Protein backbone atom coordinates (compact mmCIF):
# COMPACT_ATOMS: atom_id res chain seq x y z
CA UNK A 1 0.00 0.00 0.00
CA UNK A 2 1.53 3.22 -1.16
CA UNK A 3 0.42 5.90 1.21
CA UNK A 4 1.60 9.45 0.73
CA UNK A 5 4.46 9.40 3.20
CA UNK A 6 6.50 11.91 1.28
CA UNK A 7 6.78 14.23 4.25
CA UNK A 8 9.53 13.58 6.72
CA UNK A 9 7.86 15.93 9.17
CA UNK A 10 4.44 17.37 8.33
CA UNK A 11 4.87 20.42 10.55
CA UNK A 12 6.49 22.78 7.99
CA UNK A 13 3.83 21.76 5.48
CA UNK A 14 1.04 22.60 7.87
CA UNK A 15 2.68 25.91 8.72
CA UNK A 16 2.69 26.97 5.08
CA UNK A 17 -0.86 25.72 4.61
CA UNK A 18 -2.03 27.69 7.65
CA UNK A 19 -0.28 30.83 6.39
CA UNK A 20 -2.07 30.44 3.06
CA UNK A 21 -5.36 29.93 4.88
CA UNK A 22 -4.79 33.15 6.82
CA UNK A 23 -4.08 34.93 3.54
CA UNK A 24 -7.31 33.61 2.02
CA UNK A 25 -9.65 33.97 4.99
CA UNK A 26 -8.02 36.69 7.10
CA UNK A 27 -9.23 39.62 4.98
CA UNK A 28 -12.80 38.29 5.10
CA UNK A 29 -12.62 37.88 8.88
CA UNK A 30 -11.40 41.48 9.13
CA UNK A 31 -14.28 42.57 6.89
CA UNK A 32 -16.79 40.88 9.19
CA UNK A 33 -15.14 42.32 12.33
CA UNK A 34 -15.11 45.80 10.82
CA UNK A 35 -18.77 45.54 9.92
CA UNK A 36 -19.63 45.65 13.65
CA UNK A 37 -17.22 48.48 14.56
CA UNK A 38 -17.81 52.19 14.53
CA UNK A 39 -15.81 54.14 11.99
CA UNK A 40 -13.95 55.86 14.81
CA UNK A 41 -12.91 52.49 16.19
CA UNK A 42 -11.71 51.30 12.77
CA UNK A 43 -9.44 54.36 12.72
CA UNK A 44 -7.89 53.33 16.05
CA UNK A 45 -8.10 49.58 15.59
CA UNK A 46 -8.24 48.76 11.86
CA UNK A 47 -7.58 45.01 11.85
CA UNK A 48 -8.19 43.79 15.41
CA UNK A 49 -11.16 42.35 17.29
CA UNK A 50 -14.01 44.81 17.89
CA UNK A 51 -14.05 46.50 21.31
CA UNK A 52 -17.81 46.95 21.16
CA UNK A 53 -20.12 45.22 18.73
CA UNK A 54 -22.38 47.68 16.90
CA UNK A 55 -25.10 46.00 14.87
CA UNK A 56 -26.53 49.39 13.93
CA UNK A 57 -24.21 49.40 10.89
CA UNK A 58 -26.33 46.65 9.34
CA UNK A 59 -29.60 48.47 9.91
CA UNK A 60 -28.12 51.68 8.49
CA UNK A 61 -26.55 49.95 5.48
CA UNK A 62 -29.81 48.11 4.77
CA UNK A 63 -31.67 51.41 4.82
CA UNK A 64 -29.17 53.64 3.04
CA UNK A 65 -28.14 51.00 0.52
CA UNK A 66 -31.78 50.32 -0.32
CA UNK A 67 -31.25 46.60 0.13
CA UNK A 68 -34.95 45.76 0.22
CA UNK A 69 -35.08 46.75 -3.46
CA UNK A 70 -31.66 45.62 -4.63
CA UNK A 71 -31.93 42.14 -3.10
CA UNK A 72 -35.24 41.70 -4.87
CA UNK A 73 -33.65 42.88 -8.12
CA UNK A 74 -30.71 40.49 -7.69
CA UNK A 75 -33.10 37.65 -6.86
CA UNK A 76 -35.15 38.30 -9.99
CA UNK A 77 -32.02 38.38 -12.16
CA UNK A 78 -30.51 35.31 -10.51
CA UNK A 79 -33.59 33.08 -10.58
CA UNK A 80 -34.70 34.33 -13.98
CA UNK A 81 -31.32 33.50 -15.45
CA UNK A 82 -31.09 30.12 -13.71
CA UNK A 83 -34.52 29.03 -14.95
CA UNK A 84 -33.97 30.39 -18.46
CA UNK A 85 -30.45 29.04 -18.85
CA UNK A 86 -31.17 25.59 -17.43
CA UNK A 87 -34.24 25.21 -19.61
CA UNK A 88 -32.57 26.00 -22.91
CA UNK A 89 -29.22 24.45 -21.97
CA UNK A 90 -30.95 21.28 -20.74
CA UNK A 91 -32.72 20.86 -24.08
CA UNK A 92 -29.52 21.51 -26.04
CA UNK A 93 -27.44 19.23 -23.84
CA UNK A 94 -29.97 16.44 -24.32
CA UNK A 95 -29.78 16.83 -28.10
CA UNK A 96 -25.97 16.86 -28.08
CA UNK A 97 -25.60 13.97 -25.63
CA UNK A 98 -28.42 11.64 -26.58
CA UNK A 99 -29.76 12.34 -30.06
CA UNK A 100 -27.55 11.41 -32.94
CA UNK A 101 -27.06 14.80 -34.54
CA UNK A 102 -24.94 15.46 -37.56
CA UNK A 103 -22.77 18.45 -36.81
CA UNK A 104 -22.68 18.06 -33.03
CA UNK A 105 -18.93 18.61 -33.08
CA UNK A 106 -19.44 21.80 -35.04
CA UNK A 107 -21.81 23.02 -32.34
CA UNK A 108 -19.28 22.23 -29.63
CA UNK A 109 -16.65 24.19 -31.56
CA UNK A 110 -19.07 27.07 -32.01
CA UNK A 111 -19.69 27.20 -28.26
CA UNK A 112 -15.96 27.17 -27.60
CA UNK A 113 -15.40 30.14 -29.91
CA UNK A 114 -18.47 31.90 -28.56
CA UNK A 115 -17.26 31.73 -24.96
CA UNK A 116 -13.77 33.02 -25.84
CA UNK A 117 -15.00 36.25 -27.45
CA UNK A 118 -14.23 39.23 -25.17
CA UNK A 119 -17.49 40.50 -23.71
CA UNK A 120 -16.54 44.09 -24.44
CA UNK A 121 -16.54 43.39 -28.18
CA UNK A 122 -20.18 42.34 -28.44
CA UNK A 123 -21.34 44.54 -25.59
CA UNK A 124 -21.09 47.78 -27.57
CA UNK A 125 -23.46 46.89 -30.45
CA UNK A 126 -25.65 44.92 -28.06
CA UNK A 127 -26.10 47.94 -25.82
CA UNK A 128 -27.29 50.19 -28.62
CA UNK A 129 -29.63 47.53 -30.02
CA UNK A 130 -31.05 46.87 -26.55
CA UNK A 131 -31.59 50.60 -26.11
CA UNK A 132 -33.50 50.76 -29.40
CA UNK A 133 -35.64 47.82 -28.29
CA UNK A 134 -36.34 49.45 -24.92
CA UNK A 135 -34.58 46.59 -23.09
CA UNK A 136 -32.02 48.73 -21.25
CA UNK A 137 -33.06 49.18 -17.61
CA UNK A 138 -35.34 46.15 -17.76
CA UNK A 139 -34.63 42.93 -15.90
CA UNK A 140 -35.82 40.78 -18.77
CA UNK A 141 -33.31 42.52 -21.05
CA UNK A 142 -30.39 41.61 -18.82
CA UNK A 143 -31.73 38.10 -18.12
CA UNK A 144 -31.78 37.43 -21.88
CA UNK A 145 -28.14 38.53 -22.11
CA UNK A 146 -27.10 36.39 -19.15
CA UNK A 147 -28.93 33.37 -20.62
CA UNK A 148 -27.14 33.92 -23.93
CA UNK A 149 -23.75 34.16 -22.24
CA UNK A 150 -24.08 31.36 -19.67
CA UNK A 151 -26.01 28.77 -21.70
CA UNK A 152 -23.01 27.42 -23.68
CA UNK A 153 -21.17 26.66 -20.43
CA UNK A 154 -24.27 25.07 -18.91
CA UNK A 155 -24.89 23.05 -22.06
CA UNK A 156 -21.36 21.73 -21.91
CA UNK A 157 -21.66 20.81 -18.23
CA UNK A 158 -25.08 19.16 -18.61
CA UNK A 159 -24.04 17.34 -21.75
CA UNK A 160 -21.12 15.64 -20.02
CA UNK A 161 -23.51 14.71 -17.23
CA UNK A 162 -26.15 13.26 -19.57
CA UNK A 163 -23.59 11.26 -21.55
CA UNK A 164 -22.69 9.38 -18.38
CA UNK A 165 -26.29 8.30 -17.67
CA UNK A 166 -27.08 4.59 -18.10
CA UNK A 167 -28.63 3.61 -21.40
CA UNK A 168 -31.19 1.08 -20.12
CA UNK A 169 -33.93 3.50 -19.02
CA UNK A 170 -33.92 5.28 -22.34
CA UNK A 171 -33.96 2.03 -24.31
CA UNK A 172 -36.93 0.79 -22.32
CA UNK A 173 -38.83 4.01 -22.94
CA UNK A 174 -38.03 3.91 -26.65
CA UNK A 175 -39.46 0.42 -26.90
CA UNK A 176 -42.61 1.76 -25.28
CA UNK A 177 -42.75 4.32 -28.08
CA UNK A 178 -41.93 7.41 -26.04
CA UNK A 179 -41.05 10.54 -28.00
CA UNK A 180 -37.78 12.42 -27.55
CA UNK A 181 -39.62 15.06 -25.56
CA UNK A 182 -41.14 12.51 -23.20
CA UNK A 183 -37.76 10.81 -22.75
CA UNK A 184 -36.16 14.17 -21.97
CA UNK A 185 -38.87 15.36 -19.64
CA UNK A 186 -39.53 12.15 -17.71
CA UNK A 187 -36.26 10.23 -17.82
CA UNK A 188 -33.23 12.37 -18.62
CA UNK A 189 -34.22 15.46 -16.65
CA UNK A 190 -35.02 13.71 -13.36
CA UNK A 191 -31.88 11.60 -13.61
CA UNK A 192 -29.68 14.62 -14.34
CA UNK A 193 -30.72 16.69 -11.35
CA UNK A 194 -27.20 16.81 -9.86
CA UNK A 195 -25.94 18.28 -13.14
CA UNK A 196 -28.75 20.83 -13.15
CA UNK A 197 -27.99 21.71 -9.53
CA UNK A 198 -24.28 22.24 -10.24
CA UNK A 199 -24.93 24.32 -13.37
CA UNK A 200 -27.60 26.31 -11.54
CA UNK A 201 -25.27 27.12 -8.66
CA UNK A 202 -22.49 28.28 -10.99
CA UNK A 203 -24.84 30.39 -13.11
CA UNK A 204 -26.55 31.82 -10.03
CA UNK A 205 -23.26 32.75 -8.40
CA UNK A 206 -22.06 34.44 -11.58
CA UNK A 207 -25.24 36.49 -11.91
CA UNK A 208 -25.28 37.49 -8.24
CA UNK A 209 -21.68 38.73 -8.48
CA UNK A 210 -21.76 40.06 -12.05
CA UNK A 211 -20.74 43.69 -12.51
CA UNK A 212 -19.86 44.73 -16.08
CA UNK A 213 -23.18 43.93 -17.77
CA UNK A 214 -25.21 45.02 -14.74
CA UNK A 215 -23.55 48.43 -14.56
CA UNK A 216 -24.03 48.94 -18.31
CA UNK A 217 -27.51 47.57 -18.91
CA UNK A 218 -29.19 48.53 -15.61
CA UNK A 219 -28.02 52.08 -14.88
CA UNK A 220 -31.30 53.06 -13.14
CA UNK A 221 -31.29 53.12 -9.34
CA UNK A 222 -34.61 51.25 -9.11
CA UNK A 223 -33.53 48.35 -11.29
CA UNK A 224 -29.96 47.75 -10.26
CA UNK A 225 -28.84 44.63 -8.40
CA UNK A 226 -26.75 44.43 -5.23
CA UNK A 227 -23.37 44.40 -6.98
CA UNK A 228 -23.70 47.74 -8.74
CA UNK A 229 -25.69 49.43 -6.00
CA UNK A 230 -23.07 48.36 -3.45
CA UNK A 231 -20.44 49.95 -5.69
CA UNK A 232 -22.37 53.24 -5.71
CA UNK A 233 -22.91 52.90 -1.95
CA UNK A 234 -19.17 52.50 -1.37
CA UNK A 235 -18.49 55.63 -3.40
CA UNK A 236 -21.11 57.57 -1.46
CA UNK A 237 -19.95 56.51 2.00
CA UNK A 238 -16.28 56.16 1.12
CA UNK A 239 -14.84 56.95 4.55
CA UNK A 240 -17.57 55.32 6.60
CA UNK A 241 -15.76 52.00 6.75
CA UNK A 242 -18.05 50.34 9.29
CA UNK A 243 -21.10 51.08 7.15
CA UNK A 244 -19.57 49.99 3.83
CA UNK A 245 -18.19 46.82 5.44
CA UNK A 246 -21.68 45.97 6.70
CA UNK A 247 -23.01 46.59 3.19
CA UNK A 248 -20.44 44.16 1.78
CA UNK A 249 -21.19 41.52 4.40
CA UNK A 250 -24.90 41.61 3.53
CA UNK A 251 -23.98 40.78 -0.06
CA UNK A 252 -21.35 38.12 0.55
CA UNK A 253 -22.48 36.25 3.67
CA UNK A 254 -25.38 34.36 2.03
CA UNK A 255 -23.00 33.26 -0.73
CA UNK A 256 -20.35 32.01 1.70
CA UNK A 257 -22.95 30.08 3.72
CA UNK A 258 -24.37 28.52 0.55
CA UNK A 259 -20.87 27.70 -0.64
CA UNK A 260 -20.00 25.97 2.64
CA UNK A 261 -23.16 23.88 2.45
CA UNK A 262 -22.63 22.83 -1.16
CA UNK A 263 -18.88 23.35 -1.56
CA UNK A 264 -18.23 20.14 -3.49
CA UNK A 265 -20.72 21.05 -6.22
CA UNK A 266 -19.56 24.66 -6.39
CA UNK A 267 -15.93 23.66 -6.81
CA UNK A 268 -16.77 20.95 -9.33
CA UNK A 269 -18.87 23.33 -11.42
CA UNK A 270 -16.62 26.37 -11.21
CA UNK A 271 -13.50 24.43 -12.16
CA UNK A 272 -15.25 22.69 -15.07
CA UNK A 273 -13.67 25.32 -17.29
CA UNK A 274 -14.49 28.12 -19.63
CA UNK A 275 -16.23 30.50 -17.25
CA UNK A 276 -14.59 33.09 -15.05
CA UNK A 277 -16.28 33.98 -11.80
Amino acid at each position, binding site marked *: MLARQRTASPIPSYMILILLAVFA*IGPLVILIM*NSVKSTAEIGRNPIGFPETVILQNFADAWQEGNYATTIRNSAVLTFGTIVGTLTIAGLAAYALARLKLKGANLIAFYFLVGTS*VPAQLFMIPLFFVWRELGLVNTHIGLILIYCGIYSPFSTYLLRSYMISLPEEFVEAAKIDGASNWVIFRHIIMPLSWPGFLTAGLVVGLNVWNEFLFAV*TFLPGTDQRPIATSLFAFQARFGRDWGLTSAGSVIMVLPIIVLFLMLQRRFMEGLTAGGL*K*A
Partner: protein
Amino acid sequence: MDYTMEAVPTPQIKPKRQYAALGRWAFLLPVLILNLIVVVIPSIVGLAVAFTDWTGYNVPSFIGLENFQRLLQDDIFFLALRNNLIWTAMFLTFPIAIGLMGAYILSTIKTGQMIFRVMYFIPYVVASVVSAQLWRQLLHPRVGIGAWLANQGITFLDFPIFGTRETSLFAVAFVDSWHFWGFLVVIYLSAMSAVDLELYEVARLDGATRFQQFRFVTLPSIRPTLVFTILMIIIWSSSTFDYIYMLTSGGPANSSEVMSTYLYDNAFNRFDAGYAATIGMVMSLWVALAVAGFVYLRKRGWEI
Protein backbone atom coordinates in the same frame (compact mmCIF):
# COMPACT_ATOMS: atom_id res chain seq x y z
CA MET B 1 -53.34 11.61 -40.92
CA ASP B 2 -53.90 8.09 -39.74
CA TYR B 3 -55.84 6.93 -42.74
CA THR B 4 -53.23 8.22 -45.21
CA MET B 5 -50.57 6.28 -43.42
CA GLU B 6 -52.61 3.16 -43.84
CA ALA B 7 -53.45 3.94 -47.43
CA VAL B 8 -49.96 4.90 -48.66
CA PRO B 9 -47.46 3.74 -46.09
CA THR B 10 -44.26 3.88 -48.12
CA PRO B 11 -43.99 7.59 -49.07
CA GLN B 12 -44.66 8.54 -45.48
CA ILE B 13 -41.41 7.10 -44.19
CA LYS B 14 -39.13 9.74 -45.62
CA PRO B 15 -41.01 12.85 -44.47
CA LYS B 16 -41.34 11.28 -41.05
CA ARG B 17 -37.57 10.81 -40.83
CA GLN B 18 -36.97 14.38 -41.90
CA TYR B 19 -39.45 15.52 -39.33
CA ALA B 20 -37.59 13.53 -36.70
CA ALA B 21 -34.29 15.19 -37.64
CA LEU B 22 -35.96 18.58 -37.43
CA GLY B 23 -37.39 17.61 -34.08
CA ARG B 24 -33.95 16.74 -32.81
CA TRP B 25 -32.53 20.05 -33.95
CA ALA B 26 -35.45 21.86 -32.31
CA PHE B 27 -33.91 20.99 -28.93
CA LEU B 28 -30.84 23.01 -29.87
CA LEU B 29 -32.61 25.98 -31.41
CA PRO B 30 -33.31 28.10 -28.29
CA VAL B 31 -29.66 28.12 -27.22
CA LEU B 32 -28.42 28.75 -30.75
CA ILE B 33 -30.85 31.56 -31.46
CA LEU B 34 -30.25 33.34 -28.17
CA ASN B 35 -26.49 32.95 -28.51
CA LEU B 36 -26.66 34.31 -32.06
CA ILE B 37 -28.63 37.36 -30.94
CA VAL B 38 -26.61 38.13 -27.81
CA VAL B 39 -23.07 37.09 -28.73
CA VAL B 40 -22.41 36.15 -32.34
CA ILE B 41 -24.22 38.82 -34.36
CA PRO B 42 -23.16 41.69 -32.06
CA SER B 43 -19.57 40.40 -32.21
CA ILE B 44 -19.64 40.49 -36.01
CA VAL B 45 -21.25 43.95 -35.92
CA GLY B 46 -18.57 44.96 -33.41
CA LEU B 47 -15.85 43.93 -35.82
CA ALA B 48 -17.60 45.81 -38.63
CA VAL B 49 -18.14 49.11 -36.80
CA ALA B 50 -14.40 49.34 -36.17
CA PHE B 51 -14.27 50.63 -39.75
CA THR B 52 -16.84 53.37 -39.15
CA ASP B 53 -17.21 56.69 -37.33
CA TRP B 54 -20.09 55.35 -35.25
CA THR B 55 -20.71 57.34 -32.07
CA GLY B 56 -23.42 55.02 -30.84
CA TYR B 57 -26.06 57.57 -31.75
CA ASN B 58 -25.46 58.49 -35.41
CA VAL B 59 -25.86 56.50 -38.61
CA PRO B 60 -22.35 55.07 -39.02
CA SER B 61 -20.42 55.80 -42.20
CA PHE B 62 -17.46 53.85 -43.50
CA ILE B 63 -14.09 55.51 -42.82
CA GLY B 64 -11.73 52.73 -43.82
CA LEU B 65 -8.70 52.28 -41.60
CA GLU B 66 -8.89 55.67 -39.95
CA ASN B 67 -9.59 54.18 -36.49
CA PHE B 68 -6.60 51.89 -36.86
CA GLN B 69 -4.32 54.77 -37.84
CA ARG B 70 -5.56 56.65 -34.82
CA LEU B 71 -4.94 53.61 -32.63
CA LEU B 72 -1.33 53.36 -33.77
CA GLN B 73 -0.74 56.96 -32.68
CA ASP B 74 -2.61 56.67 -29.41
CA ASP B 75 -0.18 56.65 -26.48
CA ILE B 76 -2.91 55.77 -24.00
CA PHE B 77 -3.84 52.70 -26.01
CA PHE B 78 -0.23 51.49 -26.00
CA LEU B 79 0.01 52.17 -22.30
CA ALA B 80 -3.15 50.10 -21.83
CA LEU B 81 -1.80 47.29 -24.02
CA ARG B 82 1.47 47.32 -22.07
CA ASN B 83 -0.50 47.15 -18.82
CA ASN B 84 -2.44 44.15 -20.11
CA LEU B 85 0.88 42.45 -20.85
CA ILE B 86 2.20 43.25 -17.35
CA TRP B 87 -1.07 42.02 -15.89
CA THR B 88 -0.76 38.74 -17.81
CA ALA B 89 2.85 38.30 -16.71
CA MET B 90 1.86 38.87 -13.08
CA PHE B 91 -0.99 36.38 -13.26
CA LEU B 92 1.23 33.81 -14.93
CA THR B 93 3.69 33.98 -12.03
CA PHE B 94 2.26 34.91 -8.64
CA PRO B 95 -1.08 32.99 -8.59
CA ILE B 96 0.32 30.01 -10.50
CA ALA B 97 3.30 29.76 -8.13
CA ILE B 98 1.10 29.89 -5.02
CA GLY B 99 -1.45 27.62 -6.68
CA LEU B 100 1.16 24.98 -7.48
CA MET B 101 2.81 25.25 -4.09
CA GLY B 102 -0.49 25.10 -2.21
CA ALA B 103 -1.76 22.16 -4.25
CA TYR B 104 1.51 20.24 -3.99
CA ILE B 105 1.72 20.61 -0.22
CA LEU B 106 -1.96 19.73 0.10
CA SER B 107 -1.40 16.59 -1.96
CA THR B 108 1.19 15.39 0.56
CA ILE B 109 -0.82 15.80 3.76
CA LYS B 110 -3.24 13.27 5.14
CA THR B 111 -5.63 15.20 7.36
CA GLY B 112 -7.31 18.50 6.71
CA GLN B 113 -6.91 18.51 2.94
CA MET B 114 -10.60 19.16 2.40
CA ILE B 115 -10.79 22.01 4.92
CA PHE B 116 -7.79 23.85 3.49
CA ARG B 117 -9.09 23.39 -0.03
CA VAL B 118 -12.47 24.89 0.90
CA MET B 119 -10.83 27.82 2.71
CA TYR B 120 -8.57 28.62 -0.23
CA PHE B 121 -11.51 28.55 -2.60
CA ILE B 122 -13.73 30.94 -0.63
CA PRO B 123 -12.22 34.17 -2.05
CA TYR B 124 -13.12 32.89 -5.52
CA VAL B 125 -16.86 33.01 -4.73
CA VAL B 126 -16.62 36.50 -3.22
CA ALA B 127 -17.98 39.18 -5.55
CA SER B 128 -15.44 41.51 -7.14
CA VAL B 129 -17.25 44.50 -5.66
CA VAL B 130 -16.77 43.05 -2.15
CA SER B 131 -13.10 42.07 -2.61
CA ALA B 132 -12.40 45.51 -4.02
CA GLN B 133 -14.01 47.22 -1.03
CA LEU B 134 -12.24 44.92 1.39
CA TRP B 135 -8.78 45.62 0.00
CA ARG B 136 -9.50 49.29 -0.50
CA GLN B 137 -9.79 49.43 3.27
CA LEU B 138 -6.94 47.01 4.07
CA LEU B 139 -4.51 48.92 1.84
CA HIS B 140 -5.75 52.36 2.87
CA PRO B 141 -2.88 54.47 4.22
CA ARG B 142 -4.79 55.53 7.34
CA VAL B 143 -7.10 52.65 8.26
CA GLY B 144 -5.40 49.62 6.75
CA ILE B 145 -2.51 47.25 7.28
CA GLY B 146 -0.12 50.06 6.37
CA ALA B 147 -1.48 52.27 9.15
CA TRP B 148 -1.28 49.40 11.62
CA LEU B 149 2.33 48.67 10.64
CA ALA B 150 3.16 52.37 10.88
CA ASN B 151 1.84 52.32 14.44
CA GLN B 152 4.41 49.60 15.15
CA GLY B 153 7.10 51.77 13.55
CA ILE B 154 7.19 50.03 10.16
CA THR B 155 6.47 52.64 7.52
CA PHE B 156 6.55 51.27 4.01
CA LEU B 157 2.84 50.62 3.33
CA ASP B 158 1.28 53.82 4.66
CA PHE B 159 0.93 55.53 1.31
CA PRO B 160 -2.04 55.51 -1.10
CA ILE B 161 -1.05 52.40 -3.03
CA PHE B 162 -3.98 52.64 -5.48
CA GLY B 163 -3.39 56.35 -5.98
CA THR B 164 0.31 56.20 -6.80
CA ARG B 165 1.30 55.86 -10.43
CA GLU B 166 4.14 53.43 -9.79
CA THR B 167 2.06 51.00 -7.73
CA SER B 168 -1.56 51.30 -8.88
CA LEU B 169 -1.53 48.51 -11.48
CA PHE B 170 0.35 46.09 -9.24
CA ALA B 171 -1.91 46.80 -6.28
CA VAL B 172 -5.02 46.07 -8.34
CA ALA B 173 -3.49 42.92 -9.82
CA PHE B 174 -2.63 41.79 -6.31
CA VAL B 175 -6.27 42.15 -5.22
CA ASP B 176 -7.51 40.18 -8.23
CA SER B 177 -4.85 37.52 -7.55
CA TRP B 178 -6.07 37.16 -3.98
CA HIS B 179 -9.49 36.38 -5.40
CA PHE B 180 -8.09 33.96 -7.99
CA TRP B 181 -5.28 31.77 -6.64
CA GLY B 182 -7.51 29.37 -4.64
CA PHE B 183 -9.25 28.45 -7.87
CA LEU B 184 -5.89 27.29 -9.23
CA VAL B 185 -5.15 25.27 -6.07
CA VAL B 186 -8.35 23.28 -6.55
CA ILE B 187 -7.69 22.70 -10.25
CA TYR B 188 -4.06 21.67 -9.70
CA LEU B 189 -4.91 19.50 -6.70
CA SER B 190 -7.44 17.46 -8.64
CA ALA B 191 -4.88 17.00 -11.42
CA MET B 192 -2.20 15.99 -8.90
CA SER B 193 -4.45 13.45 -7.20
CA ALA B 194 -4.61 11.59 -10.52
CA VAL B 195 -0.83 11.16 -10.64
CA ASP B 196 0.31 7.55 -10.22
CA LEU B 197 1.72 7.20 -6.71
CA GLU B 198 4.25 4.62 -7.87
CA LEU B 199 6.08 7.36 -9.77
CA TYR B 200 6.76 9.11 -6.48
CA GLU B 201 7.83 5.83 -4.93
CA VAL B 202 10.37 5.27 -7.71
CA ALA B 203 11.62 8.86 -7.45
CA ARG B 204 12.04 8.49 -3.71
CA LEU B 205 13.99 5.27 -4.09
CA ASP B 206 16.27 7.18 -6.48
CA GLY B 207 16.85 9.65 -3.68
CA ALA B 208 14.82 12.52 -5.12
CA THR B 209 14.17 15.40 -2.74
CA ARG B 210 10.66 16.76 -2.34
CA PHE B 211 11.41 19.57 -4.75
CA GLN B 212 12.86 17.14 -7.27
CA GLN B 213 9.75 14.97 -6.97
CA PHE B 214 7.67 18.07 -7.69
CA ARG B 215 9.87 19.11 -10.60
CA PHE B 216 10.27 15.72 -12.29
CA VAL B 217 7.12 13.82 -11.34
CA THR B 218 4.33 16.26 -10.47
CA LEU B 219 4.92 19.01 -13.04
CA PRO B 220 5.21 16.75 -16.10
CA SER B 221 2.19 14.72 -14.96
CA ILE B 222 -0.09 17.74 -14.66
CA ARG B 223 1.21 19.51 -17.77
CA PRO B 224 -2.09 19.45 -19.69
CA THR B 225 -3.86 21.11 -16.74
CA LEU B 226 -1.05 23.60 -16.30
CA VAL B 227 -1.11 24.58 -19.96
CA PHE B 228 -4.88 24.86 -19.88
CA THR B 229 -4.79 27.27 -16.94
CA ILE B 230 -2.04 29.30 -18.68
CA LEU B 231 -4.25 29.59 -21.75
CA MET B 232 -7.22 30.63 -19.62
CA ILE B 233 -5.15 33.28 -17.81
CA ILE B 234 -3.88 34.69 -21.11
CA ILE B 235 -7.42 34.87 -22.48
CA TRP B 236 -8.96 36.34 -19.33
CA SER B 237 -6.15 38.87 -18.86
CA SER B 238 -6.97 40.49 -22.18
CA SER B 239 -10.40 41.58 -20.96
CA THR B 240 -9.77 42.14 -17.24
CA PHE B 241 -12.09 44.91 -16.10
CA ASP B 242 -13.87 44.77 -12.73
CA TYR B 243 -11.05 45.40 -10.27
CA ILE B 244 -9.43 48.17 -12.29
CA TYR B 245 -12.73 49.92 -12.92
CA MET B 246 -13.63 49.73 -9.22
CA LEU B 247 -10.30 50.49 -7.56
CA THR B 248 -8.60 53.03 -9.82
CA SER B 249 -10.79 53.53 -12.94
CA GLY B 250 -7.54 53.23 -14.84
CA GLY B 251 -5.82 56.04 -12.96
CA PRO B 252 -4.00 57.92 -11.71
CA ALA B 253 -3.02 59.48 -15.04
CA ASN B 254 -3.86 56.24 -16.94
CA SER B 255 -1.17 54.37 -14.99
CA SER B 256 -3.47 51.38 -14.49
CA GLU B 257 -5.45 51.74 -17.73
CA VAL B 258 -6.08 48.47 -19.58
CA MET B 259 -7.73 47.86 -22.93
CA SER B 260 -11.14 47.01 -21.50
CA THR B 261 -11.38 50.14 -19.32
CA TYR B 262 -10.17 52.31 -22.18
CA LEU B 263 -12.68 50.66 -24.52
CA TYR B 264 -15.47 51.19 -21.98
CA ASP B 265 -14.60 54.84 -21.60
CA ASN B 266 -14.59 55.38 -25.36
CA ALA B 267 -17.85 53.52 -25.94
CA PHE B 268 -19.98 54.85 -23.10
CA ASN B 269 -18.46 58.16 -21.98
CA ARG B 270 -16.88 59.64 -25.09
CA PHE B 271 -19.46 58.60 -27.70
CA ASP B 272 -16.77 56.95 -29.76
CA ALA B 273 -18.22 53.47 -30.31
CA GLY B 274 -16.35 52.92 -33.58
CA TYR B 275 -13.00 53.55 -31.95
CA ALA B 276 -13.99 51.43 -28.96
CA ALA B 277 -14.80 48.58 -31.36
CA THR B 278 -11.29 48.92 -32.80
CA ILE B 279 -9.87 48.31 -29.33
CA GLY B 280 -12.28 45.38 -29.01
CA MET B 281 -10.83 44.00 -32.21
CA VAL B 282 -7.32 44.07 -30.74
CA MET B 283 -8.64 42.23 -27.68
CA SER B 284 -10.19 39.59 -29.94
CA LEU B 285 -6.96 39.29 -31.85
CA TRP B 286 -5.15 38.63 -28.56
CA VAL B 287 -7.58 35.80 -27.77
CA ALA B 288 -7.33 34.40 -31.29
CA LEU B 289 -3.51 34.36 -31.11
CA ALA B 290 -3.59 32.60 -27.74
CA VAL B 291 -5.98 29.92 -29.01
CA ALA B 292 -4.01 29.54 -32.24
CA GLY B 293 -0.80 29.07 -30.24
CA PHE B 294 -2.53 26.44 -28.13
CA VAL B 295 -3.81 24.58 -31.21
CA TYR B 296 -0.37 24.85 -32.85
CA LEU B 297 1.39 23.28 -29.84
CA ARG B 298 -1.19 20.54 -29.82
CA LYS B 299 -0.63 19.86 -33.52
CA ARG B 300 3.08 19.69 -32.83
CA GLY B 301 2.32 16.71 -30.63
CA TRP B 302 2.25 18.29 -27.20
CA GLU B 303 -0.10 16.34 -25.01
CA ILE B 304 -2.10 19.32 -23.91
